[in-house]
Structures are given as C-alpha cells and as structure tokens.
C-alpha cells in the first residue's frame, strides 16, 4: 500500500507542522514515510505545501497523485485540483489546524492518544486538543495499516549532515545564512552546547571560509556550509586551501541558479562548480550523498581525507536532501579521523616547504608536482570507500546512472522495471571503474538539471557517449510516477 497526502496553506498557517506531526506518528506505528516540503521565498502568505507519502514498504520519494488533500486555504484546492486520485478525500473546513490533524488520524486508523502525546510538545495544548478532538470525532476510518514494531528513524539530510560532522569530531562550523544550507547551521547550533563545539555566523561567505581556514591552521576541525552563490564567493579561498594545504570540509547545498535563481526549490546545477570552482590546479574531493545516512557517512569520510591530506573536501547536497524527511535505519558507518593539522607557516603564494614565498621555476615546479602527486595518493585512498553503489537487476542491458538526491525517486520508480541502477557518490575523484558497468549498455542518465553535467563527466572519464537523459529543471525533485513513465520510454 502506498498513499499520498498533501497539506497546503499559506506560510504561517502551519501545513508543515501538521504534516510533520502526522508523519512522526505514522513512523512510530511502523509505517514508512517520505515527507517533502515546498515553500516560497516569503514569510507570510503565498502557497506552501508538504507531500506525505506513506507505505508499508520502504519508500524514498513522493507521488503527486493525492489520496487525501488537507487544504488550509482555498488556493490549495485551486492549485492541486488536477493532481487528485479517484476518490480523493478533501478536507477544507475553516478550522484550527489541529482539527485537520485529528480528522486525518481517524482517516488513517490511528489512535487518538498518539496525537495527544505530540500535542503536548507544542504550545496552546488545551485549544489544540479541543480542535483535534473535534476533527477526530468527525472523521471516518478509511485506511488500515498493518502496523509493525518501529525500528527506523525519521530525519532530514540536514540533521544527518550535522550529526555526521559532530561524530567526526567537529570543533568549529562557520556559515552565513543561505537556503538550503541554513538547516545544517540550525541543527548544529542546537547541538553545540551538549557536544562542546561552536557554530558561528559571520558577516559574509568570504569571511566564513577565510576564518574557517584560520581556525583549521590551529588544528581545529573546521567546516563551512553555503549554497551556490555563497560558494562562488568562497572559491578564491577554496583555491587557497589547495595551495596552502589547510584542511577544510565545505558543504554546498544546491538550489536552482544561476545567480539568485529559485531560492527555496531544488536542483543539481552545481556539479561543475563543485568540481572546478577556484582558480589554479589543486586536489579536491567532491562527494554527493543520495540520502541522509549516506550524508552522515560521507561527512566523516571528508574529515578523514581532508585531515590526512590537507586539502578541501566538498559535500554536495541539495534542497531535496536537506529538507525532506526520510524513514531509515540509523546505521551509518562513521569513519574515524585524527586531528592532524599543526600550526606552522602557511602561504597563499607558491611557497617552499617552510612556508616562505618562491618564484624560482625549479621550486615552483617541485611544489606543483608534490600537490599533484598528493592527488594520486588521495585517489588510491578514496577507494577504501564505496565510490558508487549498484542496485536493481545486475544483468540488465539497461543501466540508469545518477548522483545525489535523485537516488530516492529512482529506487522507487525502478523497483519493478528491468534495469540496473548505478548511483555515483564520489564525483571527484571519479570512479573510472564504472566503465565496465556501462560498456555496451543502454545508459540512461537522470539529473535534476538542464545540461546534464554527469553525462559529460561520464563521457570524459569513460569515453562512453550518453544518449539517453532524463532531466528535470523546474525546481521540483523527481516524483515516482512521472519518473517511472520516463524511464519506461527509454528502456530496451
């Protein structure tokens, strides 16, 4: 069983609160929930909505044909009326928002006490309880979930990036607010007291990265977070991290660009700035996790690699991973890392090993060579990690390839299709071994962008030309049904 519920309303009306409460209860009762959030770049008004997809089997994406529509305002109905499944239940009373939660609890066949427990965590308990009771009494049981003992957690990518950083021994996190990177800053700010580290906001991204590098020089494990525009501002210092050999972990949370783009939506347009941003030639690692648990794991891998080899490591995420809730087992494998950075003489200029400036051609060549050779060593060491993962039918002639948060929708969409799915985590260095998985196959690349940088990268690294591309670039993530249709069309 798999059904989808849409919660819509104006910003400030709280569709997000109801959706999160119901999701938590469903997960607690053993259901699998995928909850995503769509909002606009405004604080009050507009049209915000959450999509809750629930199933008795593992799911990692949403459907956008709804079985229940919770409309806190009329606009929700106008906007989504074309997306309703047959028999969709529409609830659009002019009531307090916990009325809707109560009514939905009844429809989903859940005990009222579970909601009561959640309401205790919010303010205005008496009022909310009354509204919720009214809704519950007016509802009718429609669904009956086979409940099981819950063994899973329910969390966003941002939460797990923060936890991964803390488990890796984070000392200092610096950021300037920018959607969709800010949730990691908020998560860390909430954890700093208990775990004895600091999350600090500074005047701009240039200051953020330069301050972080200053701290990293003293031996502190340092990390910064931003989105595309902020990352552009940081790239000069990223290049300095490369030449001066100061370790740094950079979280780049993508949203659609160029420039200010679509501030609160998702996209994968920044693969190339992650791989190439910053002037000059220097080693770097770029990793893009496909879900929160992978995010937690790769953060720890980045701390390990950057501390060991003293260079920048980039965690490439996006809004969909950052803000969507996943139901998953909490079984991340954390890679331990030491604090290996010594305070000594560092330099943004080409320099001798003692940190002093040099222009001597022989010395310049020697130092460049040392850094390039270091990248060869890094490439080898990275192989200790899973650089890509393979899912689906191993011997199928159809191979889907993707990176980042498209993973969830692809897993859900291809469950019953004849295809293999390769999800690439390490985009720099690139796992050239995948050539043997792609050779002679019907390769289909799926990306949340318009120009398919992954296809170009595959061609560059494997000399295999990608002809089939499924691209989406309207600010939304892929949804299961639409993606399944697109993939079916391209299967051989």
């Amino acid at each position, binding site marked *: 069983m798999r059904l989808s519920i849409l919660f819509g309303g104006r910003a400030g009306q709280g569709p997000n609160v109801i959706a999160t409460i119901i999701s938590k209860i469903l997960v607690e009762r053993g259901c699998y929930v995928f909850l995503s959030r769509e909002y606009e770049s405004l604080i009050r008004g507009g049209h915000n909505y959450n999509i809750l997809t629930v199933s008795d089997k593992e799911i990692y994406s949403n459907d956008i044909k709804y079985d229940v529509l919770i409309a806190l305002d009329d606009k929700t109905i106008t906007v989504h009326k074309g997306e309703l499944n047959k028999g969709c239940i529409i609830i659009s009373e002019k009531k307090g928002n916990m009325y809707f939660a109560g009514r939905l609890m009844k429809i989903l066949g859940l005990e009222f006490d579970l909601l009561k427990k959640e309401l205790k965590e919010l303010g205005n308990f008496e009022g909310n309880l009354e509204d919720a009771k009214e809704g519950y009494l007016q509802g009718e049981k429609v669904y009956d979930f086979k409940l099981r003992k819950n063994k899973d957690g329910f969390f966003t990518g941002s939460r797990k990036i923060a936890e991964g950083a803390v488990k890796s021994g984070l000392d200092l996190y610096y950021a300037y607010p920018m959607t969709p990177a800010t949730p990691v800053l908020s998560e860390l700010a909430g954890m700093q007291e208990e775990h004895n580290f600091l999350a600090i906001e500074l005047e701009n991204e240039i200051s953020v990265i330069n301050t972080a590098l*200053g701290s990293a020089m003293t031996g502190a494990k340092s990390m910064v977070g931003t989105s595309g525009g902020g990352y552009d501002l940081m790239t000069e210092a990223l290049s300095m991290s490369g030449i001066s050999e100061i370790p740094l972990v950079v979280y780049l949370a993508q949203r659609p660009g160029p420039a200010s783009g679509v501030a609160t939506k998702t996209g994968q347009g920044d693969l190339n700035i992650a791989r190439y941003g910053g002037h000059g030639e220097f080693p770097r690692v770029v990793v893009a996790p496909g879900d929160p648990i992978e995010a937690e794991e790769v953060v720890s891998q980045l701390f390990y690699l950057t501390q060991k080899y003293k260079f920048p490591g980039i965690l490439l995420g996006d809004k969909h991973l950052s803000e969507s809730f996943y139901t998953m087992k909490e079984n991340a494998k954390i890679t331990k890392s030491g604090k290996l950075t010594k305070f000594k003489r560092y330099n943004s200029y080409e320099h001798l090993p003692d940190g002093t400036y040099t222009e001597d051609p022989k010395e310049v060549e020697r130092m460049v060579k040392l850094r390039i050779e270091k990248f060869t060593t890094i490439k080898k060491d990275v192989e200790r990690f899973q650089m890509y993962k393979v899912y689906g039918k191993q011997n199928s002639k159809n191979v889907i390839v993707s990176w980042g948060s498209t993973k969830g929708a692809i897993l859900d969409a291809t469950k019953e299709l004849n295809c293999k799915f390769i999800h690439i985590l390490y985009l720099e260095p690139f796992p050239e071994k995948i050539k043997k998985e792609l050779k002679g196959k019907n390769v289909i690349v799926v990306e949340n962008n318009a120009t398919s940088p992954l296809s170009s990268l595959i061609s560059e690294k494997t000399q295999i030309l990608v002809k089939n591309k499924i691209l989406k670039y309207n600010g939304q993530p892929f949804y299961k049904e639409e993606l399944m249709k697109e993939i079916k069309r391209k299967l051989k």
Partner: protein
Amino acid sequence: MKKRDIKTGKLTTWCPGCFNYNILAGVIDVLEPMINKEELGLVTGIGCHAKIYDYLNIDGLNTLHGRTLPACLGLKIGNPNMKVIGFSGDGDSYSEGISHVIHAARYNADINLVVHDNQVFALTTGQPTSTTEPGFVDKTNPEGSKLTPTNPIKMMLGLNTSFVARAFAEREQVAYVLKEAMKHKGFSFVEIIQPCVIFHNDKGYLERVYKLEDKGHDRTNKRMAMKRAEEFDYSFNSKSKIPVGVFYQEERETFEDKYKILRDFKRKKISWKDIKR
C-alpha cells in the same frame, strides 16, 4: 625546545629606502622579546606590506588579498591563547577587505590589525587607493584621481572600535603604538602612514606629524579623538597637521570571552587541538 630567531634571514625585496624597513624594525622591537615566551600568530594580506611575512619567523598565514582579518579571527577562535597580529595595506583593508574591518570593530576579538597606508596601490605599480588625494595622476587615471579620500581613523572611531591609533613609519613610533595595541584587550586598529618612495613620495608628512601624547590627549575621550582625527583629511589640500599616537581606547568584552568554551581554553591554556573526541 630550540629557541626561535625572530628573523627568517630571507633576502628583503622592498625597494631601497622603503619605509617598510622602519616598520619591520619597530615590529621586531616589540615582538622579539615575546617570540619565545608567547604563542604568536602572524597574518598578512597582499601588497608590499605582506612581504613582512617572509622576514618574520612567526607561524601564521600570508593570506589572500583583503582577508587578513578573517584569518586573524580564525586563529583567535582556534586558539584564544594566541597573540594574533595581522598586517595589511590601504588597498587590502580599505578596498578589498573593507567589510571585514567594519565587522572586526563590532566583534572586538582580541586581535591587532596594522595597516600600512602608503596611499597608493604600490605592488601593482601605482594606482590610487581609497586614501589617495584627489589629483593623483597615474597611467590608469591620466586626468588625475577625482575622488575624496576615506578617513580611516574617523571611520574606525565611528565604528566604535575599542582601540584606534596611528603612527608614522618611523621605528620608535611604530614600536610605541604597536606595544600599546598589543597590551589592549580587544580589537586594535593601527594605521601606519608612510610614503611610497616610488609611487607616492613624501608629501611633507614629517613636518605635519605631531604626537598626541605630547599634547596631553585623553584617549578615553571619544569626542576629542574624533576632532583630532579630522585634522588630517589625507588630501594634502591645506597645511593640516597629522596627529599620531593613540586616539581612542576603551575596554569591553571580547568576542572570545562571550563563549564559555573559549574562556575555558584561556583558563586552562589549551585549544581545540587538545580536545580529544
């Protein structure tokens, strides 16, 4: 542990007669007695001033253009026991890195910024900076620079900087002002006025310079400090005097003292590198 010599012994590449030699001498006078006793951190930006990084044997970073202050702040947060000194120039601090200067005044971390102000972009062969006088002619401004200069001392006082001083690039004066700055708990802003012997020669600085301490200037009086700051407008239009010395000083809570963990580090003489997790 082997005693450290403050000089690296690297060949200096400033021009003959450059006033940076005087600054270097004054800086060594202050830092040499500290080098084997204190944890020192050195940061420089980009410009002629930054060559000092190669001559002072102190750990730190010769960072990007304009980014001296973020690196200084990073060092201080990384290790609050470190005495951090950052060198910068007028191009570095008043143009490329101006945003950091404004916020450094607000953060008030216990760091020292020394701005070599020769009123010209010297290492890029002589273009006007934001403190160059109007009428200054170079290849990029054949008709002469048209803009009114910034007055950095006034700016820093306006930003509520907790320590504001100026020196002329002369050994004893540099040493005096820097010593006062290092003693100050909080963000210290020091501007060093200097000619550039190639691109912005002496405009009669020495006849104009007088010492604030000789005039009985009260460094806790902000209003008087502002008045003194206005005496020199960097344009050389009138025969105005150039006051040097400490304009203003006020003790207030530092950035690092606002965080319990950083206060603990100071008390226990440790830093993040000693925290095992």
